[in-house]
């Protein structure tokens, strides 16, 4: 009998997205521009993170009308965001038929202690993580894909770089531990023992890991790929820039040809102005989206 919503099917879609760029879009027109530029998926939103940051207040799941229109506009997979812990928003998104749910710190958390039990859903989830323990807690809850948190809506890649380097460094450290040291490591990073053991043995995360949060240029995307990410989320970076179609195409090319400086130099030309950037130190700690999630 055909089995739907299995772990293989959930993680498998993430495998198919690898080497690609997932772009935030707020209208069907933007979704078409993203698809035309070669995006491997789009994230359907009411507002991009830079606007959510500027607006303040409580940010929630997008209006289903917006999501449905975007799903009708393109043939590539469509993702949508639910608030951390808001399992009913996730139920609604699954009912709409979105292809992936991002349980996202970009929206205002709905639960200050618990994330969604993602095993209970047929639709797969992606979650943000700043370090290995956080990534493995999310995978333990059923996330089939991980991304760095970065600091969304800033156009500043520094936090995504920090999170990616930290995860990679922790994996390297785990690989050198003796088996009797794994339990203590699991306790320190507050992560499920079996997943910590698996990472220690295999030397890699058990699911696909994308970069997200602050990516604004082709060079940013290629840097994250060279640091070992499997693919790229671009939030505000495309549609907050001067020439969105050109920048979208360039970031797609840079993600494929991330190890080819000649291609990177070529695609970085004549893109117009990138989105305005924010220095992380100017954002009060309690306003940093990456601090959301537990």
């Amino acid at each position, binding site marked *: 009998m055909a089995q*739907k919503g299995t772990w293989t*099917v959930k993680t498998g879609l993430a495998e198919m997205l*690898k080497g690609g760029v997932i772009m935030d879009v707020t209208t069907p027109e933007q979704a078409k521009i993203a698809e035309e*530029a070669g995006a491997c998926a789009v994230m359907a939103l009411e507002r991009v993170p830079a606007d959510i940051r500027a607006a303040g207040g409580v940010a929630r799941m997008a209006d289903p009308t917006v999501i449905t229109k975007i799903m009708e506009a393109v043939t590539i997979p469509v993702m949508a965001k639910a608030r951390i812990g808001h399992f009913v928003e996730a139920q609604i998104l*699954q009912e709409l038929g979105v292809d992936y749910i991002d349980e996202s710190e970009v929206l205002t958390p709905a639960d200050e202690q618990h994330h969604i039990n993602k095993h209970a859903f047929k639709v797969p989830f992606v979650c943000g993580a700043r370090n290995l323990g956080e990534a493995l807690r999310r995978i333990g809850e059923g996330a089939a894909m991980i991304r760095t948190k970065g600091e969304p809506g800033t156009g500043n890649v520094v936090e995504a770089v920090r999170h990616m380097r930290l995860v990679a460094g922790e994996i390297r450290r785990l690989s050198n531990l003796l088996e009797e040291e794994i339990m203590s490591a699991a306790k320190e990073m507050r992560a499920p023992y079996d997943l910590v053991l698996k990472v220690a043995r295999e030397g890699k995360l058990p699911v696909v890991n994308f970069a997200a949060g602050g990516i604004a240029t082709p060079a940013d995307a290629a840097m994250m790929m060279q640091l070992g990410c499997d693919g790229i989320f671009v939030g505000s970076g495309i549609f907050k820039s001067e020439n969105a179609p050109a920048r979208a195409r360039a970031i797609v090319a840079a993600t*494929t040809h991330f190890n080819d400086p000649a291609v990177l130099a070529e695609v970085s030309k004549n893109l117009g102005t990138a989105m305005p950037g924010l220095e992380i130190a100017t954002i009060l700690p309690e306003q940093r989206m990456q601090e959301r999630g537990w």
Partner: protein
Amino acid sequence: MVAVIVGVLALQGAFREHQLMLAGLGVSSAQIRKPADLQNIGALIIPGGESTTISKLLADYELFDRIVSLVEGGLPVLGTCAGTILLAKEIEDSTLPGLGLMDLRVRRNAFGRQVDSFEEDLPVPVLGDEPFRAVFIRAPQITGAGPDVEVLASYNGRIVMARQNKMLAVTFHPELTADQRLHKYFLNLLEVS
């Protein structure tokens, strides 16, 4: 086992899984991103991924004509999922530029969206009596095949695996399983004269 290098199109998608599968069979592989990478390969795999993304990158980096002429010249090719879409002569309801190499008509996302993705034990007689664990992810279906095409597997009346000479099209993902039989079957096509 096979002394050639198998090129794996590495523009986007699950290309590393195919390389791991080949490595497990003792076969060398190379990632293909530009025309120059196509030199010295003895076979080509077009992996799963997003067919629109892969199609655009094929066009932008001038790979279309080179791949078509190599395969028309006899280079064996395996397409999985998006790879099958790109190999087909006709893509339903789509203006997506493909390679148009196999006499197939395909329908994209034919089983539905991701919540309808599934896995199933699929009888594939050319791979032996044991069924193959077929993983279908937003998979296409082959809705028509020309007279030179041999149908190798069907699911609910739809073709999901087909061969035309040394070209093999599969709508599911053998690279996501540990079962090497489908890749072995493809590598055996290299020996066929």
